[in-house]
């Protein structure tokens, strides 16, 4: 969001903090996705998916305002996919959709790319 970047003097500090947290958050999403995929019971699967959704929700809420609109949009899409599963007809079955895990995997990779690009801006260019 251009206007945030131009109008808020302390925005760089918030962006830095977002990246620090993104490091933890992407690893939390990966952990929950793996646990859901390996889960044997309905509770294991759905609770881990719900936890991943909560982290995705936080990323989707702030990434766009801090200049990472695509990352925010991707987080929102994954979040909606999890909500659709948890509120859908398969919600009471111990099933973890492979496609959903695949999308989470792509999202985690996106997060790592964003973090890497900010750490080494010259190389990323």
């Amino acid at each position, binding site marked *: 969001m251009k206007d*945030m970047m131009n109008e*808020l003097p302390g925005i760089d500090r918030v962006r830095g903090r977002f990246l620090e947290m993104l490091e933890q958050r992407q690893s939390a999403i990966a952990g929950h996705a793996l646990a859901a995929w390996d889960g044997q019971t309905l509770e294991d699967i759905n609770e881990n998916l719900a936890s991943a959704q909560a982290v995705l929700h936080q990323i989707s809420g*702030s990434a*766009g*305002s*801090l200049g990472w609109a695509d990352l*925010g949009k991707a987080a929102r899409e994954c979040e909606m996919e999890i909500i659709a599963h948890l509120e859908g007809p398969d919600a009471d079955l111990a099933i973890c959709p492979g496609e959903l895990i695949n999308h989470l995997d792509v999202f985690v990779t996106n997060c790592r790319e964003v973090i890497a690009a900010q750490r080494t801006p010259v190389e990323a260019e």
Partner: protein
Amino acid sequence: MRILAVDDDPIILELLCQFIEAVGDHNLSTAPSAIDALEFLESNPDDVFDCFLFDIQMPGMDGIDLTRKLRETSRFADTPVLMLTAMAEKRYIDNAFAAGATDYVTKPFEVSELKARLNTVEGLLEARQTRTKKIFATQSLAEDVNTVEIFEPISIYDVENVIDYLAMENYVAQLSKQSLFGSTTFAFTIRQIDAFHAALSAFEFYSLIQDVAEIISDTLVGRQYLMSYAGSGTFVCITESGWRPDMQQLMDAINLSLARTELYNNAGQRLQPRVSAGGAIRLVWKTGNSVMEALAAAHASAEEACVAFEKSQSKYFELGQTA
């Protein structure tokens, strides 16, 4: 303004701190959860807040329940609440406004947008302060003069599904971005509102509007709807879930209920308000400004029905005449 922001994401709270620092003139407090916010407000009973910014999805209690809880208290019954959320789906929007939200901003937000929304809140607070002073000044002095203008959209509290007119406008603005397949708007106007306004004090007039709102709300119970008093005796409603109201039947039910309810002015004289209903206008395939225009059309149609009714009472000899 003194603002309290509640969000479980520390990044959003930091962003809001930066935002408030940049726009100036405001004082921001933050809480990381609804429970923390309630504890903070309880332990600081003398703190006055002019505006709340609430996230919806939070662990424990969500922002909608937090709004509902605050609206139950006299302290924050009318403090503007802006939902600041990533949840753009209609069910969240409906629930937020029904719980008492004043406005709804979707994340990611922009500085200019948030600034504009806070300016609107400031304007609302100023207008409300002036109006409240007028209403309660005449109550204590028992003056006969009505100092509240007839066209003012008075805020009504404690009536189920009745929201402030500004909140209704904001709700409509949000609706205009959604699919409105099952939505319909309609309105009721209190007959002879000019006469009531001229005869009653500001407080009596306010009480009359509140009582009629309560009766309409009771009549609509069990339906999914939001209603707002738009001024000049007119209540505008938006209903969901595909319900197409039979306006004649609804009007009769409201008038029957009004006839059974004993309403009095301060002098002990009985007031016998009745309403006229306009047409029900479906909002399907309407977007942007046309949703607000449909609301205005429903409003106008109720006022026209009111005029037609009054004409039919006084100029019955013209009935059935054709040009």
